[in-house]
C-alpha cells in the first residue's frame, strides 16, 4: 500500500510516536473508562456501585460481599433477563435496527444517487429543505404523530416505529450519500448509458458495486440512531413491542415508586455486548469501508 510508503518516507521521530501513543491512550481511557467501570460495577449491588459513602466500594464491593457472600453477583443480569424478560426488548431492537438500516439505505442510495446525478437547480433546494426538516425537534414530531396513529390503528406496532425512524433519519442519510455519490465519477454511469443501459440499470450494475464503502459508513450511523433512539420508540411502541432503551428507562422507577437501577445497569452492559461482537465480526468491513474512501464533502 502506498500508505506504508508514505509513512516510511515520513519516518516519524521517536518522540512523536510517543506523543501519539500517549494521546491515543488518553482518548481510549476517556472513551472506554465509564463503560469498563460500568461493566465491573454491573456485578455489584446498587449500594456498592452507586456508593455515596466511598467510591472505592464500587471496586471492592463490601456490601455485595455482605449480601451475596461474594464480591460479585449476577443478580442484576438475572433480574433483567429472567424476571423482566429483557430478551424480548433485544429481539425487538434487532428487528427495528435491521429494518431501519436496510430501508434507510435503500431509500437513501436511490435518492442520494439521483440528487448527485441531476444538475437541475431543484436538487439544491431539495437538499436544503431536507436539512431544514432535520432541524425539527423529534419530540415535537412524535407528539404530533400520536393521535393520527391511534386513529389509523397503527400505533404501538414495530413497522410504524421503523418507518418513522427511517423518515426522521432520511435527511442525514441523503446528505451523506449525496456527498459520497458526487465523488464517484459521472463517466462511469454515463458510459454505461451510452452502451444502452437505462439509468436504473447503470445504477444497478455500475454504481452499486462501487458504492459499498460509503454505504457502510452511512449504515453505521443509521444503525446507531435506531439502536439508541428513545424519543420515538418510547412514545410509539406498546409495552410488549418495546425496544431496549425504553425498557431500560422503565427499570429506573417513577416518582412514587422505587425502580431497580442495577437491572438497568446490567441491561446497558448486555445491550453493548452484542455491538462489541458485531464490531469484531465486521471489523474488516467497517475499517475497509472507512478505509476505501467512504465520505468526502
Amino acid at each position, binding site marked *: 500500500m502506498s500508505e506504508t510508503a508514505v509513512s516510511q518516507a515520513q519516518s516519524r521521530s521517536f518522540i512523536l510516536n510517543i506523543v501519539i501513543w500517549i494521546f491515543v491512550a488518553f482518548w481510549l481511557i476517556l472513551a472506554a473508562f465509564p463503560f469498563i467501570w460500568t461493566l465491573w460495577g454491573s456485578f455489584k449491588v446498587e449500594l456498592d456501585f452507586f456508593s*455515596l459513602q466511598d467510591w472505592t466500594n464500587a471496586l471492592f464491593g463490601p456490601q455485595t460481599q455482605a449480601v451475596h457472600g461474594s464480591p460479585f453477583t449476577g443478580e442484576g443480569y438475572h433480574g433483567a433477563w429472567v424476571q423482566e424478560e429483557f430478551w424480548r426488548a433485544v429481539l425487538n431492537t434487532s428487528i427495528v435496527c435491521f429494518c431501519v438500516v436496510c430501508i434507510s439505505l435503500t431509500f437513501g442510495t436511490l435518492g442520494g444517487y439521483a440528487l448527485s446525478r441531476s444538475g437541475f437547480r431543484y436538487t439544491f433546494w431539495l437538499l436544503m429543505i431536507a436539512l431544514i426538516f432535520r432541524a425539527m425537534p423529534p419530540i415535537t414530531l412524535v407528539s404530533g404523530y400520536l*393521535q393520527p396513529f391511534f386513529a389509523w390503528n397503527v400505533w404501538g406496532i414495530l413497522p410504524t416505529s421503523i418507518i418513522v425512524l427511517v423518515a426522521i433519519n432520511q435527511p442525514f442519510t441523503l446528505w451523506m450519500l449525496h456527498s459520497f455519490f458526487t465523488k464517484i465519477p459521472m463517466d462511469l454511469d454515463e458510459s454505461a448509458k451510452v452502451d444502452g443501459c437505462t439509468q436504473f440499470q447503470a445504477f444497478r450494475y455500475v454504481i452499486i458495486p462501487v458504492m459499498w464503502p460509503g454505504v457502510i459508513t452511512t449504515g453505521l450511523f443509521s444503525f446507531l440512531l435506531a439502536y439508541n433512539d428513545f424519543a420515538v420508540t418510547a412514545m410509539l411502541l406498546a*409495552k410488549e413491542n418495546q425496544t431496549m432503551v425504553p425498557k431500560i428507562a422503565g427499570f429506573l422507577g417513577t416518582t*412514587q415508586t422505587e425502580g431497580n437501577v442495577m437491572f438497568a445497569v446490567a441491561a446497558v452492559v448486555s445491550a453493548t455486548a452484542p455491538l462489541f461482537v458485531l464490531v469484531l465480526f465486521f471489523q474488516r468491513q467497517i475499517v475497509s469501508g472507512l478505509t476505501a474512501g467512504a465520505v468526502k464533502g
Partner: protein
Amino acid sequence: MKHLKIALLSGVAAFALASTAYADGHACDIGEGRVSIIGNEFPAIQTLGAGAAACASDSAEVTANLTKEHKNIQVPGMTNNPAEYTVAIISNGSIAPLMTDNLIRPLDDLIAAHAPDLPNQQKITLDGKVMAVAFMANAQHMVYRSDILAEAGLEAPKSYEDVLANAKVLREKGIMENPVGGAYSAGWGIGQEFNNMFIGHGGEFFKAGTAEANINNEKGVATLEMMKALSEYMNPDFLALNNNEISAEWKAGNVAMLQMWGSRTPALLDPEGSVEGVAENTALTGPMMVGDSGTPATTLWWDGWTIASNVSDADAEASFKAMMASIDPSILEQEGVNEQAVWLIEGYEPTNLSEGVFQTIKSGATPYPTLPYIGLLHTALGAELPDFMQGKESAEQTLADVEAAYTAAAKEAGFLQ
C-alpha cells in the same frame, strides 16, 4: 390483535397467582366487549392488570399497556372514537387532563347495575357524578433515623420548625453535616415541595372559583423562606437530587430526616438495600406541621381507574366489570399483594409500611387538588423556584415570575382570559 395477551406484559408470576385466585370461585364473567387498559407501571397496578386479564374469554379481549409513558399516551389514545383505551389508571394528579378534554364518562349507571355495594370511600365524585374508582392511597410523610436523633437526645420532629432545630443540633454536635433530605430537584419535585409547604401555611393556590393564581402573597413568601432554611441543611446538590437519588442518600446513611413517599418506604425499610444500621433504625411518622394553620404540609393522593367516554356501552360495561374484578377484596389474599400498597379495598390489613400514610390521613391532610389548571401552576413553580433557592433573586421576585409564567400558560390553555 395489536396487543399480545396480558400475560406477556405484567409478570408471569403475578398472572399465575391471579388466575388461581380467580379460578377458585371468583371467576369473572364480563360478557362481550373489549377491555384495553393504559396505566403506569408499578407492582400494585400490575396486580390490577393481571386481575383484569383473568377475565379474558373468547368473547372478551383484555389487554393492558402499563408504561412510564402513560401520561403522554393517554390523552391521544382516548381522544378518537372509538378510543384505543377503554380504561385509564390515573391518580388525582393526572385525572385533570382527561376531565378537561371530556374523555372519561360518569360511572353511576354501571355502579348501580353491577356494583351497588361499592364503598363510598372508593368513589371519586364530582358534582354528584362518580368519575373514578379509587383503589390505593399514597402520601408524602416524614421518615427519620431514630438512632441518630436519640444519640443527640432529640425527639422525633412534629413540625418543620422542629426539623430545623434538630438539624441545627445535629450539625453543631458534628453528628451529621447535612441531616435534612427532600426531593428538591428542579422541576416537578421542587414544585411539589412548594405545594406541600404552601398548603401547610394555609395557602389557597387560586382565588376561589377562578383560575387566577394566589401564591404571590405573604404565605408564599413564608413558604419559600422555610424551604430555603431547610435547604441550608441539605446536601449542596439538592436541586439535582430527585426521589431516586435522595432515597439512595438515605440508604447510605447520609440523611436523618426526610419527607418521602409512602410508596417508597418499603425500599427504605429493607435492610438488604441499605448500609448496616440504617434500615433497622428508620422510623416512619406522619407529615410535618408548619406555622400555625393546623393543616399538615403534605398532600394526600389516591390512584384509581376511569372508563373512557369514547367507547361503546358494551365495551364500557365489560371494562367496568373487569376492573371491578381486578380490585375484588380477594386479591389481597394473594401472596405479597397486601404489602404492595395502602389499598383502599375492604379487607386490607395495614402493615408497618403503611404507618406513615395512615398517620397522614388521620392528621387531616388535604388531597392534591384535581383542578384542571393545577398542573400548569406546578410546572411554573418547578421552572422558576430554582432561581430563588440558589439565592439569585428575592422571594417576591420569584413568586412574581411564577405568577407571570403560570398566567401565560393558563391564558394559552384557555383557563384565563
